[in-house]
């Protein structure tokens, strides 16, 4: 029994210790950001591996999510004779929720895991220590560009996801199911507000971008430098990112749209 309490306390302390290390790393990355200005090509290369390479999965899933929304929304709305509101349903659910959240989840799986594995392997093969020996700060040279790349890529990917999703919903609703084209767009434009919906969606995806890349970078940097440690860190990145994104989404939604 006593052992059980001891291990519980140890786990709790370990969690707080990791949280503290993560915060210190975050602060170090932020203070190191200005050194990136003369070395912006580092960021560009990371935007390629984090953003451009995620493009295919984002576009394909956005298209299918939009098409499913169109189909499901139509089946529900047609019972009330309100199928003209399909555009509103598709656009609002994509711009407010599904765009930022699903993009962040895919991003964690596609780019976050790759970041963790890359940084963890760099640590395991002592590349990071070697950089320190050459008086190069690995936080500024390796971690900061990846962080900025995630921060830049996430809102762009989310916007692409939402836009492609709206097109998918339009394809299913208008081309296949015969909803009126003009009503689809005009009702959508009537109900979607630039500030309330689109701007808040972008803010959400920015927040998710910061959190997911932060988790990925921290897990990589904090991984036990063995092959097993790296694989565990990669798993933790995906699991923790997904949980944090969903939790944070509720908080942000309550702040932006709720009147609690």
């Amino acid at each position: 029994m006593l052992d059980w309490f001891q291990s519980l306390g140890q786990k709790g302390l370990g969690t707080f210790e990791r949280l503290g290390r993560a915060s210190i790393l975050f602060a170090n990355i932020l203070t190191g950001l200005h050194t990136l200005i003369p070395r912006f090509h580092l960021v560009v290369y990371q935007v390629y591996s984090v953003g451009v390479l995620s493009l295919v999965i984002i576009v394909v899933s956005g298209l299918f999510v939009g098409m499913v929304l169109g189909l499901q929304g139509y089946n529900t709305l047609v019972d009330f004779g309100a199928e003209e509101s399909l555009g509103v349903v598709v656009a609002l659910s994509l711009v407010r929720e599904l765009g930022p959240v699903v993009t962040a989840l895919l991003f964690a799986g596609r780019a976050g895991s790759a970041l963790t594995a890359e940084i963890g392997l760099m640590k395991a093969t002592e590349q990071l220590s070697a950089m320190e020996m050459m008086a190069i700060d690995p936080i500024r040279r390796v971690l900061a560009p990846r962080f900025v790349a995630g921060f830049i890529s996430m809102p762009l990917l989310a916007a692409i996801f939402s836009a492609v999703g709206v097109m998918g919903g339009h394809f299913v609703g208008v081309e296949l199911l015969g909803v009126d084209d003009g009503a689809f767009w005009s009702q959508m434009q009537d109900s979607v507000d630039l500030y309330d919906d689109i701007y808040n969606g972008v803010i959400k995806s920015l927040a998710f971008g910061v959190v997911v890349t932060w988790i990925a970078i921290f897990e990589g940097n904090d991984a036990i430098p063995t092959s097993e440690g790296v694989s565990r860190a990669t798993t933790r990145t995906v699991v923790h990112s997904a949980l944090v994104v969903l939790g944070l989404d509720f908080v942000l939604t309550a702040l932006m749209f709720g009147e609690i």
Partner: protein
Amino acid sequence: MNSRLVEIWVGIFVAAGTAALFMLAMQVSNLSTYANDEGYDVTARFEDASGLKVRSPVSMAGVRIGRVTGIEFDKQTLEAVVTMTIETRFDTLPKDTSASIYTAGLLGEKYVGLEPGGDEDSLKQGDRVKLTQSSMVLEKLIGQFVSRFLTESDAK
């Protein structure tokens, strides 16, 4: 991967992302309806403005000619004061125009419908629409209908 190709791909990615944001702003949201926000303000007092919101449409003959830009409560007269901005190009509304709050469809959103009068002068900035009719509240209407139905059946 040579670095020029990487840069080109990143450029395409950033351009596509910006284009998607732009498309969301222009095509999906109400940005295009913001364009004609210049106009003159007219106020109207309603006994009941329930359901009306800021940015609700103001229309005449079924065409949108402006938007509601403010709803306030007058504590002296206990009425709702609704400020409407009418687009500048519609400057020939007669002075005795009347305003009513209607519902688009049975359960749709509320809007202000203006009906023209016959006055020679036209409404100007700061004028007040004097003839108004409040919004129809479905519960009240049903309540009236039910109570009348009950008294009639009692009389029989």
